[in-house]
């Protein structure tokens, strides 16, 4: 019996995030589609409302987590050696950076 094994591996994490995104993505497409093209004041006001702010934040965080698992599998399949590790670090950095910038933007509009 091993206790050091993670309960959720890549595949399982991919499944969990994909089930959450099944509900989030259509909601986000609808929200983004209804506000894009409006002027500055309308956009800022829209994202300061609770549900657009919450759904957009959740889509950003879970979507980018899903991207991390997916891109990691892609890298594992096609890149080997030290480039493999560098590619994974690069993907994680880009993804966390986008996540934080997105949440910062929403927070700044919401408060």
């Amino acid at each position: 019996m091993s206790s050091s094994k993670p309960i959720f591996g890549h595949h399982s994490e991919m499944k969990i995030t994909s089930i959450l995104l099944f509900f989030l993505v259509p909601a986000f497409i609808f929200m983004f589609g209804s506000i894009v093209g409006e002027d500055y004041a309308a956009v800022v006001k829209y994202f300061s409302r609770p549900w657009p702010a919450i759904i957009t934040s959740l889509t950003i965080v879970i979507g980018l987590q899903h991207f991390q698992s997916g891109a990691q599998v892609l890298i594992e399949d096609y890149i080997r050696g030290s480039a493999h590790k560098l590619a994974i670090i690069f993907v994680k950095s880009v993804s966390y950076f986008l996540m934080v910038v997105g949440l910062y933007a929403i927070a700044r509009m919401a408060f």
Partner: protein
Amino acid sequence: MGEFTMADTDQSNRPLSPHLTIYRPQLTSVSSILIRITGNALIFCVFLIIWWLFAAATSEQYFIFADAILTSWFGELVLLCSLWAIWYHFLGGVRHLIWDRAIGLDLKTAEIFGWIVVIGSFLLTILTVILL
């Protein structure tokens, strides 16, 4: 020629999978690879939308600049392609969730699923454009 033994720990010499170039393309394989391509390509759309949100949170002038790019013909083309990509990835993902339940794994059903994903992605894209 690499010699593989049980104790082979040299990870760098192992073959990589999947071997895309040695298989004859089929609906099931091409539609599966497209899930990977659409999924990873969507990061550019995520980047664009987050940049647009960041601009809106920063100042009116910055927003007007970012919004002009997002709503230019090129921006709209990227958004339209991304819309198809996300619906394709969405349906393809649902197909995998169904397969994970060990349903529809026979060749005939798998090919029907493939057509549903391909045709459905275009229909959902058209529907979204009409609705929004």
